[in-house]
């Protein structure tokens, strides 16, 4: 078993090294890092007054954020320990103070220190209700990412996904790490395919209350609106990250085609003029191109096309079922789902379809990949543990972590960045 695993690791190494040579954060499973993630010390907060944490203590949230981020590796320690930090090459560490206030709120002072000099690199203070501690700590963690990498982190982002609640598929959202879950739909038919509206102000999803798939938009804390009611059956929504415009599939007379529509006015035009069926549109990061799936070659394959609907080119050639492609936020790779002998697995490839890397294998079905907005991670659904749950992995397929549990959870879609002041 171990031998097989090791072989797989070597195979992954062989595949991974040339393609990611320019990227500094790749790591391969079972602890052998090709390009080291950055170790960071994590020390428990000093607590004033006995504090009962709603979910976890702040340092545990920070350690989880660090390990999930694809950038760090947490080096936990009960107190500041320069020997340990030096040995593990943790050049910085995070810690803080927590004070219980008389009004029931908690004051969190969070710090990022340089380990050797003990210089304070970053300090942030939050006064929050106990339930909002996670949010505050995530916020601090993203500031740490910004301080050390000059990039935005994903600890404050969220996921939308489909959860089976009392036997009905409902759309829910949660923090990117699976905590703080909130149910969005309550309709008793089927709710599915959630995607985030521009600026994360709400979702677009599919509902079957009219005994057929139809798109709806919902604003958080607001109301639900049916979309593009001029069509009988609509699904596969994709939001343009720049304009908020929607691409979606329309089924009419047995033919499924992609349309482009404005959610505000309700007007929509045919996007592609092809004879084949088309589903699963996905915008490129700067909305200059679109990926979609077509069966024009006899089996579902991934194609790319310009934003004006011209210059169709085929991306995938290997295998008989390649679907649901989505463009990485960094713009350099495509992730998609491929089916072989009835099993679904996740692959990435370069923009011209070459340099294919299989990210999942020998672990049930793995499908519906979605990029984190920083392009470092991929969330997906897998039934490897018996029933479908949501997992997060690094973009090279390593560090797979389950983030949901309970009844079936499927079809994750990662939010955009939430705009926060730095």
């Amino acid at each position: 078993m171990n031998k097989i695993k090791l072989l797989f690791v070597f195979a992954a190494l062989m595949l991974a090294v040339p393609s990611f040579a320019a990227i500094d954060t790749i790591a391969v499973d079972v602890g052998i890092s090709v390009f080291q993630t950055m170790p960071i010390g994590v020390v428990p907060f000093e607590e004033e007054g006995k504090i009962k944490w709603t979910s976890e203590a702040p340092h545990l949230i920070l350690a989880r954020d660090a390990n999930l981020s694809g950038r760090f590796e947490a080096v936990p320690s009960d107190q500041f320990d320069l020997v340990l930090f030096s040995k593990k090459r943790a050049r910085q560490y995070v810690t803080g103070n927590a004070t219980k206030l008389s009004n029931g709120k908690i004051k969190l002072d969070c710090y990022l220190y340089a380990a050797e000099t003990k210089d304070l690199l970053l300090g942030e203070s939050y006064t929050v209700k106990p339930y909002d501690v996670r949010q505050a700590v995530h916020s601090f963690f993203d500031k740490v990412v910004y301080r050390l990498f000059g990039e935005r982190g994903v600890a404050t982002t969220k996921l939308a996904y489909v959860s089976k609640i009392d036997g009905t598929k409902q759309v829910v959202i949660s923090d990117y790490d699976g905590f703080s879950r909130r149910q969005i739909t309550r309709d008793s038919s089927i709710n599915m395919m959630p995607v985030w509206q521009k600026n994360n102000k709400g979702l677009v999803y599919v509902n079957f209350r009219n005994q057929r798939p139809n798109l709806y938009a919902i604003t958080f804390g607001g109301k639900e609106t049916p979309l593009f009611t001029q069509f009988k059956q609509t699904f596969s929504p994709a939001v343009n990250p720049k304009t908020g415009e929607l691409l979606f599939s329309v089924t009419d007379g047995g033919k499924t085609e992609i349309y482009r529509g404005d959610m505000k006015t309700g007007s929509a035009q045919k996007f592609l003029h092809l004879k084949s069926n088309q589903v699963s549109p996905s915008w490129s990061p700067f909305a200059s191109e679109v990926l979609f799936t077509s069966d024009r070659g006899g089996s579902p394959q991934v194609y790319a096309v310009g934003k004006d609907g011209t210059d169709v080119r085929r991306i995938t050639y290997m295998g008989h079922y390649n679907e649901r492609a989505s463009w990485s936020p960094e713009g350099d790779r495509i992730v998609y789902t491929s089916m072989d002998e009835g099993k679904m697995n996740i692959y990435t490839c370069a923009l011209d379809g070459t340099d294919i890397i299989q990210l999942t294998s020998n672990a049930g079905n793995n499908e519906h990949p979605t990029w984190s907005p920083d392009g470092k991670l991929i969330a997906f659904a897998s039934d490897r543990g018996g029933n479908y749950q949501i997992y997060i992995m690094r973009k090279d397929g390593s560090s797979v972590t389950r983030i949901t549990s309970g009844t079936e959870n499927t079809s994750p879609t990662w939010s955009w960045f939430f705009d926060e002041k730095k």
Partner: protein
Amino acid sequence: MSKIIKFAMMGFALAFFAWGCSKEKPETDPNPKTAEAPADSLLNLDALIADTLSADSLARLEAERLEAERARLEEMINRLMTEDVYFDYDRSDLTENAKRLLAQVAEILVNETRFIVTVEGHTDARGTEDYNISLGARRSTVVRDFLVAYGVDAGRLMAVSYGKERPKVQGSDEAAYSKNRRAHFRVSIANNE
């Protein structure tokens, strides 16, 4: 106007009331006129009472007939809703078995013109949600097109897709898959005017 026609009219009116459906509007139109006719003679009133009494028993007979008719329709609808059309993996063309079954379905629908049918296209659990909705749509449309070609009024047939969302049989083997790759009929009776 002869009594017989009046009887027939009252009978119809009651029958439609009982059935909750009135498709032949013109025949119910004369009624208001009858009601508005000046009842200035006793003879007229007597006749009206006699008519109503007979109409009562007539209505009872009619109700029994309708009950039998309803049972017959119910059985037919049940049959339509249990007989699914099955497809091969990732295919939407009709097998010989499917065609034979659809010919029988078409026969029923050609005769029962009040049946409104929604053809649901379904797929097995393999593949993505998105692709399976398009596959289910192709299946339901192929079935709909077959029935229309057979002579069923296209206006009474709607094709929709559920993709892989509503499996008939749970499981992840061919036995379950083959039962889930189907077109399913949902039947209602036109009762609006």
